[in-house]
């Protein structure tokens, strides 16, 4: 579904991604872990098309299409979704307006008819229930006055509403208490299907207790330096990132 080859990117002339290779197939959940400054957020931003980041080399194919040529809205319409680390507040625009606009733009692109108000409302109710959200949320302005946890939950709510093919969770666990973490994770697990895929970007292992990955990759200095199964995450939690770096250094010296 997603194929990243030798991806290099910088921001303000500073090289952050230093040649990333990653293959994600449908039905898979991948996790990218790494210390601060390793390039995790840059990777997320490049994937969704933030133009502050410049791709200098490599390619990204999403279902065989060149992702780097698409603007952010086209990526979303093709089925990509980023759950933001810092969701934006939009005063004066209700969640309903926001989601209906987004949903209908995506449906239009895919030659699907607009949802009727009734269908839209039913979908809202169904998805809100999964996350234990109050129905009144829908008439509130997007993220305005939401706590950090509520914003993250709203990201997952948007994801469920828009039904993307591929989801990127960018540090979704940061700032969440354990209860919120469980709710957010259960939302992602409901979404998980053999036909779609998830990439979890996180600093800590604890989110992966609830969203269990098939593959774990360790990012350091803009490169994936180690890949493995879900047990790699536990090992990292145990030994810290220095363990990997030392191991890598030894490998280089050998």
């Amino acid at each position, binding site marked *: 579904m997603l194929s990243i080859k030798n991806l290099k990117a910088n921001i303000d002339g500073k090289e952050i991604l230093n040649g990333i290779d990653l293959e994600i197939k449908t039905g898979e959940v991948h996790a990218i872990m790494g210390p601060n400054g390793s390039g995790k957020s840059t990777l997320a931003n490049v994937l969704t098309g*933030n133009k502050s980041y410049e791709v200098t080399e490599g390619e990204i194919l999403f279902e065989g299409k060149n992702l780097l040529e698409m603007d952010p809205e086209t990526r979303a319409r093709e089925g990509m979704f980023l759950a933001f680390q810092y969701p934006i507040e939009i005063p*004066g625009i209700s969640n309903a307006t*926001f989601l209906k606009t987004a949903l209908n733009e995506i449906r239009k692109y895919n030659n699907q008819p607009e949802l009727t108000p009734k269908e839209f409302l039913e979908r809202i109710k169904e998805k809100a229930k999964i996350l234990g959200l109050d129905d009144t949320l829908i008439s509130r302005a997007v993220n305005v006055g939401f706590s950090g946890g509520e914003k993250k939950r709203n990201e997952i709510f948007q994801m469920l509403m828009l039904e993307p093919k591929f989801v990127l969770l960018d540090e979704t666990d940061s700032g969440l208490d354990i209860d919120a973490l469980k709710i957010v994770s259960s939302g992602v697990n409901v979404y998980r299907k053999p036909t779609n895929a998830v990439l979890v970007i996180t600093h800590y292992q604890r989110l992966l207790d609830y969203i269990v990955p098939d593959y774990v990759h360790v990012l350091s200095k803009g490169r994936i330096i180690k890949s493995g199964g879900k047990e790699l995450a536990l090992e990292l939690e145990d030994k810290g990132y220095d363990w990997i770096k030392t191991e890598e250094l030894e490998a280089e010296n050998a």
Partner: protein
Amino acid sequence: MNNLEFKNIKDWYLSGFDLFEKKLNGESKSFLHEIRKDALLTLSSLDFPANHNEEWKYTNVSPILKYNFIPAVNSILPKFSKKEIEKFLFSNFDCHLIVFINGIFSEELSEIGALPDGVIAGSLRNIVKENPQLVNNYLTRLSKIDNAFNALNTAYSFDGLAVIVPDGKVVDKPIQVLYLNSSGDELILSQPRNLIIAGKNSQVNIITNYCGFDQNLYFSNIVTELYADENAVISLCKVQDESHDAFHIEKLQASQKSNSLFNHYSIGFGGSIVRNDINTLLDGENTETHYYGLYLANGKQHVDNHTFIDHAKPNCMSNELYKGILDGNSHGVFNGKIIVRHDAQKTNAYQQNKTILLSKTAKIDTKPQLEIFANDVKCSHGATVGKLDESSEFYIRSRGVPQELAKSMLIRAFANDVIETIKIDQLREQLNHMIFEHLHRVEIHNQ
């Protein structure tokens, strides 16, 4: 007639007074006529403001002075049907409707309906005729002539809105006032003279709506006097949607007695040169004043908002939020003056001006002007100028929303903290609609 016959535009306006007096007939016997004649004298001694005048530094009024506008009383009043004025009205809420055509009251088009006992809402001209002592104590006493424009308004004062709410009366329904302007063969000078008086413990909510037909060139030159007696609550929402060729100047002079509350909203869309002076004297303790402003401009529009809050007494609170959305080659001016007088201890005064520039060629001159003579006060001011936030735009687009629509959402979000303070839901929605219409942008309908 053309301008060449007159050495300057002032002579043109002075010369029209004879005809004006003839048109007045018996109405020239009233107390008001003495005021007019005094104002005419004052006008003859004043020059129209120029840029070297600090108060008019960023606004060049010379385009207004190029035309020989004819006071509406001296011209033929156009006739409109109820159907024709419908599209200018704010609809779907209950109100007392008062209509002025070129500043002159239209009985046929107004639907004032039943008002609480003793409350007057309608034509100033009628009140001056029927009950002169009622307005004599206020009219022209609140607003002193301080420039040639309001001298001109006073000299030709003839009609306008009169709202007089006696002590203890509450007007439940809002009063909607439509000022519709239209120039035919003659270029019209429309000069409403408005007087709003709220007695002790009274409440009233007024929406004034200044508008005109597209591509009509005219000049709206308005003076509004407003008096809030002790414990009165007044809300005045001004919507300015004049023709894009028109000129619009209003001076509002308000005076508040103790424990009164005055909310002023100024939502501006139209006009080629617009100047608002919004002055409030806090003439009693424990008053509260809110100024909310939102102005949009594109093309070559010039919009100048001068606000002034005069903290003359202790323990008063004023709060001001003015926001501008400027596109094209438009030019905005904001001058927010606050004086805290020597005796006005425990004053709280806040002011904010925020501007979004949607184009590289739009510009704003923004200037806070705080003069504080008391020592125990809390005052703050702030001004920001910027573009639409790119990270917010990215967030919206990453949900599949096209760029132009994302921008519209952010414009609405920016306008929201002014618009949301308006308490009538239907008015709020219609104003949101006007925002997108005026910026020629894709509209966001809230669910």
